[in-house]
């Protein structure tokens, strides 16, 4: 049988090549998948990775779209990466994203139709708090009762989805909406609208914030002592305790950051591109952001590029849907493959395989 033996020296070149390699393999295997779905694989791959950026027909629409779709991915992945570095596994960002949107939107809609410049920043803040509170549940249970945060944060996604349905059909339902599910459109409420900042592109404040936060997190992780404490905890809880850090405080901090950023992404989305709270508000950014975090090697700069690549597969994937009739699920498989190949490649970067003898 096979045996995995850890490599003594992990090549930094190989570990950087990982993401590129996995994108390449995803194209090949994805192409094969598309072929069996009866679509020209070359046209499909070109449409996903090339056309959104380069085609004259699509790029004026697609390029801003990449940033709009990339922004929540980058925001959420930044927060998650901090936790992942500390071995705190929040995989429920999807739920925190939903709760951020519901909290912020509920606040704004409760004031409707009052107009004030205070409403927008307050709504953002409350959205952030909403996401943060949702991540405090796994944090509290982990610190107090050693409950596994992976399970709790994941299960809370489904709770959040039920609350989202409740809000869409119940307490946030648009009273002027003829009984249809879904809240009032925040874009039609000036004080609460996350309006575009570059006319005609749809690029909103969240895109700008995602870029600024990339820099902020880079500095935090590589230049600030707090980033070091997080890294130390992730590498050795015992050394972290010896250093004098309180692991529980760091666990809370990591979940606060990831929950808050997911909440921020949620409120930015609901007040901007999505416009309203509805049953289908969440499209899986919270889960995809996990792929983005790892594809970006838990490095803020890497996460920026990974977020853009992943957004490309969303935008390009939509193109293939209406141009080539590829099913949406095929695109999700495509995205899943990225993480799968990345993790597989990592295994070979960190381990070598040895054939075991008969002994």
């Amino acid at each position, binding site marked *: 049988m096979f045996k995995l033996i850890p490599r003594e020296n992990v090549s930094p070149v190989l570990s950087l090549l990982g993401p590129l390699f996995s994108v390449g393999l995803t194209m090949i295997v994805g192409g094969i998948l598309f072929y069996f779905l009866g679509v020209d694989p070359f046209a499909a791959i070109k449409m996903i990775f090339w056309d959104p950026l380069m085609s004259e027909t699509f790029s004026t629409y697609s390029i801003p779209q990449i940033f709009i779709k990339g922004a929540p991915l980058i925001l959420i992945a930044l927060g998650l990466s901090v936790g992942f570095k500390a071995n705190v596994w929040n995989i429920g960002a999807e739920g925190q994203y939903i709760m951020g949107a519901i909290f912020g939107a509920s606040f704004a809609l409760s004031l409707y139709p009052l107009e004030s410049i205070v409403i927008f920043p307050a709504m953002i803040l409350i959205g952030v708090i909403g996401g943060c509170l949702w991540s405090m549940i796994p944090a509290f249970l982990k610190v107090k009762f050693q409950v596994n945060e992976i399970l709790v944060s994941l299960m809370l996604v489904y709770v959040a989805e039920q609350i989202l349905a409740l809000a869409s059909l119940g307490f946030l339902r648009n009273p002027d909406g003829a009984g249809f599910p879904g809240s009032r459109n925040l874009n039609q409420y000036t004080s609460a609208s996350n309006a575009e900042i570059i006319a005609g592109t749809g690029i909103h404040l969240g895109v700008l914030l995602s870029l600024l936060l990339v820099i902020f997190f880079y500095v935090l992780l590589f230049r600030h*002592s707090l980033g070091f404490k997080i890294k130390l905890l992730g590498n050795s809880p015992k050394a972290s305790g010896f250093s004098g850090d309180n692991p529980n405080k760091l666990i809370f901090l990591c979940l606060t950051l990831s929950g808050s950023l997911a909440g921020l992404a949620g409120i930015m989305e609901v007040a901007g591109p999505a416009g309203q709270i509805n049953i289908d508000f969440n499209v899986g950014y919270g889960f995809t952001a996990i792929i983005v975090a790892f594809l970006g090697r838990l490095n803020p700069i890497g996460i920026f590029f990974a977020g853009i690549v992943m957004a490309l597969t969303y935008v390009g994937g939509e193109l293939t849907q209406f141009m080539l009739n590829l099913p949406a699920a095929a695109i999700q498989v495509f995205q899943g493959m990225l993480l799968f190949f990345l993790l597989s490649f990592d295994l070979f970067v960190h381990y070598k395989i040895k054939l075991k003898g008969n002994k």
Partner: protein
Amino acid sequence: MNNKIENTLFQCRAINKEFGNVRANNDISINVRSSQIHALLGENGAGKSTLVKIIYGLLQPDSGSMTFLNEEYSPKSPKDARALGVGMVFQHFSLFEPLTAFENILVGLDKELGEKELHASVIMLSESYGLEVNLSSFIGDLSAGERQRVEIIRALIQKPKLLIMDEPTSVLTPFECESLFKTLKKLASEGTSILYISHKLKEIADLCDTASVLRKGAIVGEYDPKKMTPRELGEIMVGQSLFEPKRPVAANKSNKVLSVKINEVKPDTQFGVTLKNIDLAVYQSEILGIGGVAGNGQEELMQVLTGEKKDRNVSIKYMDNDIEMLNPRERREIGLAFAPEERLGHAAVGNLNLLENSLITDPKKRFQMKMGFIDFSELNEYTNEIIEKFNVKTTGVSALASSLSGGNLQKFVVGREIGQKPSLFIVNQPTWGVDALSAANIRQAIVDIANTGAAIILISQDLDEILEISNKVAFLTNGNLSIPTNTMDIKTDEIGAIMGGISD
């Protein structure tokens, strides 16, 4: 010469063994004569264990030959070795804890033997060689010394002609060591040769007839330990001259730095040791040595002293401040420094580079600028300083801690702490697994900061180390600490009694 060859019991010729690129054994030839205690002396990594594993059939040599009782000898497994008359007692015991001592001996047998018959021969062995063991006790309830005696009986029951002992005293109190030596001498006088592996020079001089010294996988030579001083032997072992650090001049009795009082502290896990009745004080320029066999509360005491474990039943006074509720960082900020026993994963982290490892303890916040940003130029400078001052062999500050050898990492950790110029330095096993020259350097560095006014608590299982540089010594037994005494006044037989828990 003729006489020598006649008496040869075991011989190996030009044994070679490689692991990857490392030559663990390089052309090794030794001659073990009958009825002799033959020492195999060398530092960690010199190739002693590889050689005895080959002799015991656990490893096969790449080349070379062995003869035993004038016949070709090439055991394919320990079972072969035992059948031919070679026994071995390992450093780490291979006993089943839930079974009794007798059952352990029974299951270790290669041949079927009636229980009654076995019982009789076990009793006979234990009586004639002074190997006292309560046969019906469970292994889990026995001390390290008793467990070792079970292992020895288990090896002797097969009537070996050659008995290999791998660092047998590393887990024993001095009292237990003495009785072990008696047993071994008696065995030798009755015709069993013993291959005795150790790096403890004094016991080799006391016990052994011949010493083969190994260095870097090769034989340096064969010596008569009775005709040499331990220091001469040690210099042959490390291949360079050694100096002995001197204990700090004198303690300044008026300046008490730390006093610790512990009534009772329960361990966090069921395998831990309860600390009881600990009362110690350490003064400026004084080294307080805390000796004792491993697992008698050293780890637990260290955790209480660092602040990794806080407990209300502890009172720690540092220069008139109560510090028992402070965490490790807060303790460092007021002048304490610590170097725990476990290097990788506690004192240092393998996955982090040396710069980052310097950051783990930063009491004076000298690597921090305003608002907590890291001052990389200061960090670089400090880390380079440690590497240079303590002669840490590494490719540079960005090398991962895991790439350093154990000894070099230990030098780095001790250097990192001493470099912070602490007023009180608490260190556990500072020279464990460190080569002799580096060990002497580390001890000297500890003495040096004591001479400039620091107080030191030196926890160590190396009795020689403690007696060499401590001003006062106390011993941990089962979580109890004996009353500290002046090192100069203490006698070796008293130490044995204290460590064995005989006097209380």
